[in-house]
């Protein structure tokens, strides 16, 4: 049974969006993703978050690698770098070290992050560089038309794994927690309200924040991480979850059959920028 409720008129909705200021953050390029792709709600949530946090588009740089998710910078009206496969984090590191006052957001997919770009994640996390990493996890390589990724489930049949994926999927939340990320959360593209809230918090966090977004690929995955399956699997974190307890966060992250949405772990500690400023201060003081 669907509750229809009050009618929504297109003109009124457009007027409301226009007034909200959110469109200032959208570029004139229309997203090139497949209809129904989970990524639409991510771009929507990021622009809403930037608007809500009142961050000027010219004070924001969005950095990506290569993949479906990585086309993201073209669809927002901020500064952007659409870099190379796997290299979004080091490019973003260069930007943030050079220009501390920019809000730097990195977006990318599971292959970009955990296969080719895997070497960079531990170091971004341990340095606690003040950037936000939004990871779009659909468990598949979409732009190359459907091959297994580091988060594909066991047995998943794809173009490069016709007899089923043999490699155990990574657990990104466990990895980020052990790498020392100072903000680790999970959201779901099928729950845009929560997603938007999580993106807001992730950007507002001072330090390296990692938001894992479960997001179905409607074109190349009709069997595993679909809206239907994910919708039945996801749950909230327990009410008494202690966000400052890394062991509790890891305990929750282990429950991959029922992925929890919410903020797993957060801590406040000096950022890379703080450290570099301290080095500068010490060297100028001559010690």
């Amino acid at each position, binding site marked *: 049974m669907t509750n229809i409720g009050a009618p929504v008129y297109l003109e009124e909705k457009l007027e409301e969006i226009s007034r909200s200021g959110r469109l200032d953050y959208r570029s004139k390029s229309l997203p090139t993703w497949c209809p129904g792709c989970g990524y639409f709600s991510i771009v929507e949530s990021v622009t809403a978050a930037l608007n809500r946090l009142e961050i000027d588009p010219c004070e924001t740089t969005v*950095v990506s690698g290569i993949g479906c998710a990585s086309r993201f910078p073209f669809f927002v009206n901020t500064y952007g770098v659409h870099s190379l496969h796997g290299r979004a984090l080091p490019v973003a590191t260069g930007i943030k070290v050079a220009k501390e006052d920019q809000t730097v957001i990195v977006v990318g997919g599971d292959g970009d992050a955990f296969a080719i770009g895997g070497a960079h994640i531990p170091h971004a996390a341990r340095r606690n560089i003040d950037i936000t990493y939004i990871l779009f996890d659909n468990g598949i390589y979409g732009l190359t038309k459907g091959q297994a990724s580091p988060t594909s489930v066991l047995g998943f049949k794809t173009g490069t794994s016709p007899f089923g994926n043999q490699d155990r999927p990574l657990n990104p939340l466990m990895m980020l927690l052990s790498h020392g990320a100072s903000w680790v959360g999970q959201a779901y593209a099928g729950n845009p309200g929560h997603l938007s809230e999580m993106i807001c918090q992730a950007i507002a966090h001072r330090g390296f924040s990692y938001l894992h977004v479960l997001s179905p690929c409607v074109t190349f995955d009709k069997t595993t991480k679909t809206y239907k399956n994910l919708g039945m699997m996801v749950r909230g974190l327990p009410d008494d979850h202690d966000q400052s307890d890394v062991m509790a966060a890891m305990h929750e992250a282990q429950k991959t059959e029922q992925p929890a949405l919410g903020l797993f772990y957060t801590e406040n500690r000096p950022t890379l920028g703080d450290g570099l400023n301290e*080095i500068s201060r010490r*060297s100028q003081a001559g010690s």
Partner: protein
Amino acid sequence: MANRPQILTDMQVSFCGSAGDGTIAAGDIFKRAMAEAGYQIIAFDVYPPEIRGFGKCIARTRVTFDQVYSLKPQSDVLLSLDDSHAIPHVGEVRDYGAVIYEDRPMATVEEGEHMSGHLKPAQLPYGVSFRELSERATSGARFRNIVAVGFIAGLYGLPRDLFHRTIGRKFAGKPAEVTESNIAAFDLGYDDGAKTFQVDINGFGPPPKRKKSEKVLMMHGNSAVARGCLSAKIDTFFGYPITPATSIMEILAKEMPKRGGRLLQTEDEISAVAAIVGAGFTGSRSATSTSGPGLALMTEVMGLGSIAEVPCVIFVSQRGGPSTGMPTKTEQSDLNLAVRGVAGDAQRIVLAPTNVEGCFKCAGIAFEIAEKYQTPVIVLLDLYLSNRYEAVALPNKNPFKLDATKWAKKPGKGDAYQRYKLTPDFISPRAIPGQQGMQHTITGLEHNELGRPNDQPAMHEAMSHKRHEKLKTAINYPNLTTSKRFGDKGRVRVGVLSWGSTFGECLEAMITVRKQGITCSAMKVVMISPLPVDEISRFMDDCDVVLVPELNYEGQFASIVMGTLGRPVHRLNRVTGTPMAVNDIIEEIQILAADKPKRRKAAE
């Protein structure tokens, strides 16, 4: 004793020992003292890749009154701290040169293993009790190397207090006893040397006077690169340690924070170069340094820098390759990679300094050019240039132009900023994050003027044209000597075309053959890509034959010249891991000048 100089004006000293003997440290004190006195210096150390162990170390220093360009093939003094390593080098000591060695070794020496049995008839032996003197000064044998330096200083009548000052500075951070012990050891060696009968010489002449407007510093190529970066007001540096480039990063790690700069050691070379592209995108003056293996990893990101048109500078110090190759040996074999190593056809600017002073200039100018032409610039050194010391006169005034960027004006209302606008000079006005109303995304995808992905045939042609033509104009960049000819003017029998560190040896060879009556000039090419074809072509017009000596097996520069100009050259290639021997070049020039048709044909 024919040709015996009364007062030496050009002295080359080689210290040779085993790793752990303090060979390099002895050479360091010697060259620093001589540079401080005001002499010209060229010094180069050879050492094994292992920190400990029994590998061979040689520290060679050439001290002269006038500027010279390379080490001499023959040393005037060989000082052995370990005969087993030094004996094979006896042959490089000239006639009536001095061979100094331990005369009272610790243990019994097997027949044929002591230096005294290996000297050539005309060489002058000096047996010195390094170990005993060291023990007398400090109750230990660790200071043999300092005794050795003292002995040479005493033998040649060099000022004692000069060395005391140098030793004091070298151990400045250490407890006072360290300096005292070293000076005591030095003095015992000095006294021993001073009372030794000087067979061949009456000492070394006093140093020349210097102009006051220059500060003369002794530094190696990497240090000159770091100073160039600092003079050019570098903002950010990202790097990963690799021999022989590491010292660039180490110097900057110390100096940049004092000046408000930021340096980060990244997780690998890919992230280092990706970070400088990110930093360059924000308008930060950014650089990295690496060697061949690191450069191989960087090529993909450098392609991004080319197509996204981001200024950044990559310092590369070549070593023996391929793969891990010979990390502590010199070679010029990464030229192809530096010029051509990229996916797709992106041209790249490559500068190759030929001496230590050139390292300083190229480092600073690389930033100017990167910003002016909005592109990655490689400055290509090699281990020989990175590690060799020269006394360099640096200008007191900052020689670098730091406002080379062509900035964009804010577009009118309704107009979008075009990051890749097609312009008559092929350079699109820049905007950087933080500037309002100029937001854009740079990309490694082919794009239109706005920077939006676009793979239409006309667009790829237009953008490829823009990127290539833009770089060609860099040949005329006013502040840079892209090539220069030395020696005979006009028509010559042999022309030597050279690049990088080998140019010093070429210059020495050219000077020598001219004295033998062969007309010869040598041209250095500093800008390797894009190649200054007009200058090279004019030079080749004047030469009967052109010789390209370089330290790689295939003749990579020769191939680039022949491929670009379509004219034949003669290759001279060595892959010994050491600088090219001047005599090899001289011999080749003599053969070419004598015009042996059979050999010429084979070479062409």
